[in-house]
């Protein structure tokens, strides 16, 4: 833990015709953070580090337990459009963005349809593209806990893993995960967790600095998908972390923070 803990707040803003819960903390140039398919895992060491130089805006996806779902959002592409409108309403663009797993897919869809809304983009093991070697782990046939456990390469060597999602099995957390899984199912049931048009659309994106971060041992989204992302987004960099699974920000926090800070600054 860093010594000077940075405070964060949770509030509601009205944007894109809906109420949206946003977690906000830090100071400096805004950074839009899109969370993964199990929800917002908590304020972690990497948030703390990046909040020193950025104001983090972390929306909780509608329907993920906090506020009701938005009826017209029934795909990840729709969710991407929803956030594009929300960014415009909040006058935040062009903004730096970082997205994790499903949140990375949302960011990629936003970039594919309007790259100018972003200054720089960081995608951390995003879903969205079907790997050509291996397959994306199916969240819908396992428990949330099993999915979470499979998301790290070696839980023993990443102490922060034990603190994710509050760390304990509570009824509230079970319910929050079920909300997240249900909404993810509405968004990404079929084709499972990917959009066949995403890679071709990303090939139309130019002049958007993009950093892809992947764990070499990712069991959730195999790294072959990372290579397709890398080939599709012109000029993108692919950073591969060794001995690391689907959560580089937790498993290799120092390396992750250094890499992202240097890319964004």
């Amino acid at each position, binding site marked *: 833990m860093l010594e000077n803990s940075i405070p964060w707040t949770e509030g509601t803003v009205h944007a894109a015709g809906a109420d949206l819960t946003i977690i906000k903390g830090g100071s400096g140039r805004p950074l839009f953070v899109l969370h993964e398919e199990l929800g917002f895992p908590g304020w972690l060491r990497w948030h703390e580090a990046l909040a020193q130089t950025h104001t983090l805006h972390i929306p909780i996806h509608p329907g993920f337990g906090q506020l009701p779902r938005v009826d017209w959002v029934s795909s990840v592409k729709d969710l991407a459009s929803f956030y594009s409108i929300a960014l415009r309403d909040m006058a935040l663009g062009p903004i730096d963005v970082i997205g994790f797993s499903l949140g990375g897919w949302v960011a990629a869809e936003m970039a594919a349809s309007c790259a100018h809304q972003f200054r720089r983009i960081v995608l951390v093991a995003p879903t969205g593209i079907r790997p050509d070697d291996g397959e994306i782990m199916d969240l819908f046939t396992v428990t949330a806990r099993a999915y979470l456990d499979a998301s790290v390469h070696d839980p023993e060597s990443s102490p922060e893993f034990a603190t994710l999602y509050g760390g304990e099995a509570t009824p509230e957390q079970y*319910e929050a995960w079920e909300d997240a899984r249900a909404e993810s*199912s509405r968004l990404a049931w*079929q084709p499972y967790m990917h959009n066949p048009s995403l890679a071709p659309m990303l090939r139309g994106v130019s002049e958007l600095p993009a950093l892809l971060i992947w764990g070499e041992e990712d069991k959730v989204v195999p790294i072959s998908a990372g290579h397709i992302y890398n080939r599709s987004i012109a000029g993108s960099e692919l950073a591969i972390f060794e001995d690391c699974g689907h959560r580089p920000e937790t498993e290799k926090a120092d390396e992750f923070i250094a890499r992202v800070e240097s890319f964004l600054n």
Partner: protein
Amino acid sequence: MHIMMFTERPYYDVPEDEIIKNASYFGIPNTHFDPAKGSELLNTYFDEVLYAEDRGFDGVMLNEHHGTPFCMGSPMNIEAAVLARITQRLKIVLLGNPLPAADPLRLAEELAMIDMISGGRLVPGFVRGAGSESLFNNANPAYNRELFNEAHDFVIQAWTKPGPFRYEGKHYHYRFVNPWVLPLQKPHPPIWIPGLVSPETVVWCAKHRYPYLALATFLDPTLEMVKLYADTAAEEGYQSGPENFGYLQRIVVAETEEKAQELGKGFMYGGGINSFARPEWMFPPGYNSKAATRRLAKVFTDPESGEELIPFTPVESEADIKENRAKIYGRYQTEQDNLQLIVGTPDSVIPKIRHILERVRPGIFAMWHHHGPVSHEDRMTSIRLLGDEVLPAMRAISDELGLAGPYETEPGSRPLPASGVREPVAGEV
């Protein structure tokens, strides 16, 4: 009272250890399936239905599950079509077609065809399907209830609204609805709905005046649903009664107590209904309502009740398999004590059935009369004893208790008393 025979038509030639290891019937590799044995079984199950008709049953109840040796009736409508032709009198009661997994227009056609072949003996029930059906059929579980509701409304339209018409719904879209096979029964066949005491389904049934049949559920929650149905019916302006309610009971009979006890163990095979599917397959994302998820959240995070709900998890070692088998058969007597399972000779089971009829007051009663490895010969004996000895006793009890079924009293046809306050129902008398 309408009395039906029911069996899951199990494919039971799977080693019990395989089921215990998997902690689930769903997901057992189909390399364990031998089509030659399957063929023989399916045909003897048909023979048994013919025998049940001969021995005086009113109906045969079929159901549908996929990807599991628990039940071979995957495309149940095919079995129903065969039975429609080979039986003469039995009602063919489908409880039910899993609507979220269906193409509703095709389903409307299939059911109309079965109704025509049978000469108007079809009862087409509908279900949301177990969670595992959503996975097997790739029907998005997060839309399960929406799919159920829309498909139901569409099937009724396809049967009753003159075609051709165009249909654009949320989940279903048809350019040309004009089925040239329509049900013989008008305006459409009677619909019954089975379930596992989900309050949402009970309310929906009462609003549609469809009888609700509780599937071998515990008595107390079942009685709560009888009451919920009656309350909803009263809001809808009618009095519910036995004609609105059915119950599925597991009953094993044989010539001797000893033999019955041996056969009854088939219901525990591999863990029985407790090993139907693992929780992650029973409750895929969004399958449950928010209220049901909240109830489960409490149960799953509490070690004690969690153990009750998920008694078995997958195991590998011989020692663990042995331990789980002991746990499974350790429950056999308990299930009999709480009447979840009634086992015995006709003489010893009748008083127990009487107790159930007095408490639940159903107008529809289904007898799930075997499960697990039970031979054709033993199944035939069971049908004979049920038909010749148990059914006549039940009919007498039913007359005494006034348990009119839906073919005696039209469900939803009875007005509320003049006072506007509904009569007491089962569990309140």
